[in-house]
């Protein structure tokens, strides 16, 4: 019996102790009419050898195409040490650290992680993770409504240059509550959100303004002006950031004169493999004054009976298991193991390594843009410095081209047709430090060929 250790003798002895004659009898409180017959829809068991073979086949079936798509998930080098440590049983198979004394490893790691995130973001406190970047934005919106006591409108302004799926997820998750996410157009010339567009809201009751840096198109927003406008108008600022970019970009804690109020983002770039979209982790950081409105677990440092330092979950009164219907969020299980990966990643890279990786990504995206726009019929839509992403416009529909590229083992980018039809045949492309110049040349020559150039 796979994974069941009971011997015949064990079973007999245990049944005798309980005082029943069969295991079946233990289910006698379940009404007989409800009992399940065979689960015919489940195949017979495979042993480990058989499932290994199957999974190897399935994993190989999809090949190892060359990736030129980002759009919120980035192929970075993941140091081997990370997952060799993270999958150690002591991290991998432990529960949430409810018994602090028996979980100091996880707790100290989380404390170190929180510290690193505060430093990266320039904020005071960070939680121990949310599900992913998109849901983190939703939580930030809900939090802003709680935290901005001066505002009663629950109106949140969201530029259309924020990741469109993030906006959708935020809409889904905040949908049950009386909260408005107002989408504001971006500047069609520059691909960024123009701080001037906020002027029409001056004097109104705005709860918060969201700004993504770099934005979905990979461009840099005028975060200082936006932040200052928001604060001047009683609104909080929610920053959505790529944590890797923070190695080179001004941290949200320093945006404008006062810095933002809530920072969220997707932690995947920090040592987490692409893995079909998850598990990743969302991060969130804020100012000390808002910490009690923050959702998610927080680890604190304290002392033990002997005065020795140690770590424990703290401020649990915000959480569902204590506060129940009045909790800051319903989140319980979060993305702990991914945070462990990120903590090791940040430790290995350090400030300097992170900066180099970020810079290399910038360089490779530039190389990519140069190589592709050299092809007649391919043009860059928005100019200027960027990170990771670039919007290209083609002279024909994107979808069939992406299919043709896929047949040649290239994942060519993200088709913007659904979310940004106004951009025409637009394609979002990305290169990270993992794309070599040769990879880029291969993409360019393949695309040129497909375009008949």
């Amino acid at each position: 019996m796979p994974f069941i250790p009971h011997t015949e003798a064990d079973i007999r002895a245990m049944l005798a102790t309980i005082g029943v004659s069969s295991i079946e009898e233990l289910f006698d409180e379940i009404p007989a009419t409800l009992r399940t017959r065979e689960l015919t829809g489940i195949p017979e068991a495979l042993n480990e050898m058989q499932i290994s073979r199957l999974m190897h086949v399935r994993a190989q079936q999809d090949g190892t195409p060359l990736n030129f798509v980002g759009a919120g998930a980035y192929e970075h080098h993941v140091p081997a040490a990370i997952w060799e440590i993270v999958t150690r049983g002591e991290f991998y198979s432990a529960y949430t650290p409810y018994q602090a004394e028996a979980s100091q490893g996880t707790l100290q790691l989380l404390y170190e992680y929180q510290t690193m995130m505060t430093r990266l973001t320039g904020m005071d406190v960070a939680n121990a993770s949310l599900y992913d970047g998109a849901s983190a934005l939703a939580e930030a919106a809900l939090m802003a409504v709680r935290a901005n006591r001066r505002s009663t409108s629950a109106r949140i302004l969201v530029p259309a240059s924020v990741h469109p799926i993030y906006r959708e997820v935020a809409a889904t998750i905040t949908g049950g509550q009386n909260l408005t996410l107002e989408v504001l157009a971006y500047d069609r010339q520059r691909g960024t959100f123009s701080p001037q567009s906020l002027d029409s809201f001056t004097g109104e009751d705005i709860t918060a303004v969201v700004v993504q840096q770099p934005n979905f198109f990979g461009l840099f927003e005028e975060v200082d002006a936006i932040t200052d406008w928001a604060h001047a108008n009683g609104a909080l600022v929610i920053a959505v950031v790529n944590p890797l970019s923070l190695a080179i970009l001004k941290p949200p804690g320093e945006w404008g004169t006062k810095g933002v109020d809530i920072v969220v983002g997707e932690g995947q770039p920090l040592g987490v493999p692409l893995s079909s979209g998850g598990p990743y982790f969302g991060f969130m950081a804020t100012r000390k004054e808002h910490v009690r409105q923050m959702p998610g677990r927080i680890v604190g440092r304290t002392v033990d009976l002997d005065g020795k330092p140690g770590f424990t979950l703290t401020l649990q009164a915000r959480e569902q298991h204590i506060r129940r219907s009045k909790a800051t969020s319903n989140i319980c299980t979060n993305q702990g193991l991914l945070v462990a990966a990120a903590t090791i990643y940040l430790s290995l890279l350090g400030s300097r390594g992170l900066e180099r990786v970020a810079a290399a990504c910038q360089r490779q995206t530039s190389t990519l843009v140069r190589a592709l726009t050299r092809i007649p019929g391919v043009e860059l839509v928005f100019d200027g410095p960027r990170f990771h992403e670039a919007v290209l416009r083609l002279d024909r529909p994107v979808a069939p081209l992406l299919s043709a590229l896929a047949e040649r083992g290239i994942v060519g980018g993200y088709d913007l047709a659904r979310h940004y039809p106004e951009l025409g045949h637009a394609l979002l492309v990305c290169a990270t430090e993992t794309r070599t110049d040769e990879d880029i040349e291969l993409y360019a020559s393949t695309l040129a060929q497909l375009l008949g150039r």
Partner: protein
Amino acid sequence: MQEPLIFHHSRPGRSAAAQYPADAVADVPEHLRRKRPAGLPEVSELQAVRHFTRLSQLNFSIDTHFYPLGSCTMKYNPRACNRLAMLPGFLGRHPLAPESLSQGFLACMFELQEMLKEVTGMKGVSLTPMAGAQGEFAGVAMIRAYHRARGDHARNEIIVPDAAHGTNPATATMCGCKVIEVPSLANGDIDLEALQRVLGPNTAGIMLTNPSTLGVFERRIVEVARLVHEAGGLLYYDGANLNAILGKVRPGDMGFDVVHINLHKTFSTPHGGGGPGAGVVGVGERLLPYLPVPIVGRDDDGRYRWLDERDLPHTIGRLSAFMGNAGVLLRAYVYMRMLGRDGMQRVAEFATLNANYLLARLRAEGFDPAYPERRASHEFIITLKRQAKELGVTAMDFAKRLLDFGFHAPTTYFPLLVPECLLIEPTETETKQELDAFIAAMVAILREAEQDAAKVKGAPYTLPVRRLDDVRAAKQLDVAYTEAESGA
């Protein structure tokens, strides 16, 4: 042994230089540029490996300890699941890779959906929720969407039993619903009369787990379902306790309209010190149109593809940037294939056998079951109310002392309505020997409590730290290491 903070290992200018490109200069306009380095630790690769390896050793875990944490289903996480989910082909797949390059992966996901439908008795499944609580959110959001679609706008009350897990009421609130509590009877079953009193035109639905968090099976579940349905409400099944009944009785057959399943419990994906999990949702006929996207569909030609808003125009929408915790889903898929048809049923059988054995033995040793007349399901509650009064030794004290004996503590003080409770869930993957050793430890602690209560109250003694000051942690908030202290 304690381990210094990673920041204490750090020295300016050090780094794990094999991990990044040697050159490359950032191109950022002056006013948007970071001015000072981020203050991340500067350590060598060996220092990082050593630090985090040492930290790991400070944890209890399934791979090292019996971990009978009630409601959490801490069972063996097969290593094959990890290994196979981490094959390069799976790890390297971008979530937006075209379907033509994703058929192997999508096949796994499609089959997982099918298997989950079968074990829950549901008609449709969405894999996207990233943990139980997000599954609950999806479920309640679908219930609301259903009522709303019928123009039934008044239905905004979600009924939960007093013993419900905190995520249930918190979820209801997140969905904009009012939470109505119903009490349970002394025998652990729901108070049907109380239930009838709160049912009405505002009832959106009820959230239940069965067996309940009291560790007993709600015997009148058919009656409950009838009452709720008659009142126009829907039934939500919190699948956290599915391990107890897998293959024995299905939520769909009990009358539930929607269910979430904690794959990190019943389907043994790891908890990872706090996640990731996966809280997939299954629905009956009525809620099919509202399932969150994306979902994996199969076309007539056998090709798999993503179903999205275009296929499910009434979907409640998306819950994550991509498709949820794919890697967790792969692990669950491997686990389910290894269990197979018969293995599924054995899960519930041996989880229940272990729980009832442990209960019988502990009772014989003088511990008080919270529901002495009832069978244990896969878990059960011991109340130490008597010991707390007579000996001054609380459930917390027992829990901490158990750590010294090499056992992770059961869940304490949950459910809230049972005083001084230990919620004990041994799971099916533990041996009788291990259970016997746990019982011996419980008895030894009871004797200690009788003879030297202070000893128990001072526990633990053998862990990296002694009992921690939680109050201080909350009062003198220290949630990030500061520069000042680091002397940097």
